[in-house]
């Protein structure tokens, strides 16, 4: 495109784009700003409250003292890591079997996976809750992790990705004495890393931020994940009138994922593109 064309096209469209981008970042900017404002200065009718590092220090200290945010984040990390590892451990061999192995029941299993893609989590959640409650397993990591360890999306993605892997390489590996499982972990997974990366990103984002299921199976504060913990801090008396501490808490639990994924965004985009092309 020539410079003239670029200049001619700059105008209302670009202004609207910039405005939309501004609205998109506004809650982030405001959350950070208010976390540096003294609580008494937040709602005064002034357009921008006075901000200071000292007030910020106070706010973040109060947030961490009043709500066990670091504990929530540790819980979130444990739950997300366990879910992701188990999802891949269970889905990759199944995806490989569906893509590359002939066995009785394969079409049935694939049909089941496609059907499972359509079942939202909230449907099985009701009987699962009843079962977990009767088993006395509410307020445990197992309750937070269990229902998500089998991911139809992961099985489907891995199958699609493995389909295009050359059969000759697999046969050669078998002649070299590779077992089927080591073919999965040593050949297929390394070749499918964009799919693994894209899936891992989506899985971590979904489970770090999920509010529904933790709200269902967790009532004790020390087992809460970040969103459930923040929601309970919000609802508790400790944060009433202390918007600044609430915003500081929001910054603390939102920052790790946002910062981490801004850096892997490009890879995610490439992974998604490859997945979309399959």
């Amino acid at each position, binding site marked *: 495109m020539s410079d003239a064309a670029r200049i001619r096209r700059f105008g209302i469209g670009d202004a609207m784009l910039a405005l939309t981008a501004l609205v998109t970042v506004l809650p982030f900017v405001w959350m950070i700003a208010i976390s540096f404002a003294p609580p008494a200065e937040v709602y005064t009718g002034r357009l921008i409250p006075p901000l200071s590092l000292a007030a910020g220090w106070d706010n973040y200290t109060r947030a961490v003292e009043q709500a066990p945010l670091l504990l929530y984040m540790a819980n979130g990390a444990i739950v997300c890591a366990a879910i992701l590892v188990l999802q891949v451990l269970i889905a990759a061999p199944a995806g490989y079997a569906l893509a590359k192995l002939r066995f009785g029941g394969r079409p049935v299993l694939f049909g089941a996976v496609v059907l499972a893609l359509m*079942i939202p989590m909230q449907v099985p959640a009701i009987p699962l809750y009843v079962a977990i409650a009767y088993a006395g397993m509410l307020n445990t990591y197992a309750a937070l992790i269990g229902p998500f360890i089998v991911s139809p999306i992961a099985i489907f993605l891995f199958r699609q990705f493995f389909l295009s892997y050359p059969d000759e390489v697999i046969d050669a590996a078998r002649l070299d004495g590779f077992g089927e499982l080591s073919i999965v972990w040593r050949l297929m997974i390394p070749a499918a890393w964009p799919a693994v990366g894209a899936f891992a990103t989506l899985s971590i984002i979904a489970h770090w931020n999920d509010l529904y299921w933790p709200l269902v199976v967790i009532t004790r504060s020390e087992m809460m994940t970040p969103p459930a913990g923040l929601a309970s801090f919000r609802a508790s008396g400790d944060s009433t009138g202390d918007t600044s501490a609430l915003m500081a808490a929001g910054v603390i639990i939102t920052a790790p994922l946002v910062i981490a994924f801004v850096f892997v965004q490009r890879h995610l985009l490439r992974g998604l593109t490859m997945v979309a092309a399959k």
Partner: protein
Amino acid sequence: MALAGAAAGPLSQGATRAHLMQARAGHLLAAPAAGLLLVMLFLPSALVLTLSLTDYAFGMPGFNFIGLDNYRDMLTDARFRTSIANTAVYLAIVTPVSVLLALWLAIVIDAQGWLRGVYQTVFFLPVTATLVAMATAWEVLLHPTFGLVNNLLVLAGGDKVRFLSDPDTALYTLAFIGIWKQVGYNVLLFTAGLSTIPKDLLEAGSIDGADRGWSRFFLVTLPMLGPVTVFVVVITLIRAFSEFETVAVLTRGGPVGSTQMVLFTLYEEAFRYFKVGMAAALAVSFLVFVATVSILHARFLDRRVHYV
């Protein structure tokens, strides 16, 4: 089987053994996933279908089959009707706006120079952010008396709006936050879709006179983005129907039921009032919605494959 193998000679005997081993490996590798799908997904879902025909309440010793009474209540009881109507309004706003806005954004961002990466990052932010925290930040921005938005409204000579506490505006405010969240996700999907359009197709388009702007959009970009667009519509419909966080955190269905939506109602019925039978009926209707949208999607894609 062993006889047939022996009669056919050593070569095909080896082949049969390889087939048998492959079948065994297939069963072994697929077994954990198959078993878990059954236990975690299919059996509980089948159970939900059954429970929706009962008056089971959590903690009760037994239950009765009451036929379709729960479904009848869903259509006659004011609270359930309201939540279905509110969800419909929410879908009708969030879906078209967040799909069209994202399509426009993805295309405009793709044409940007050095700002492209910046914009991509900006619209990616809501995708990763914790909605509970961001909803709270929006609540501060939209504070009825001294929030930034109302301060700006007054500055511009307007009147203050009680966004989340006025029954006339609360649902639209949640829809706005829903759009804010969904647009980022949709931009990501459209951007991935755009990058799969072969560059030579764009060049071919420019030879045919579709060199830039709207003509290129309608002749080349839009047809190529067709399948992605349908996918984005489906995902948006499902995610908008599943909206829970903003309701649970910001309004709890209020004021006066103006933001009561299906998934929040389901949650309250099941996990606060423990009326499992009724909640199961709501879950089944949610399932029917998702399945219908997904099947229509699959059908549509099938037809495209035949035409293109």
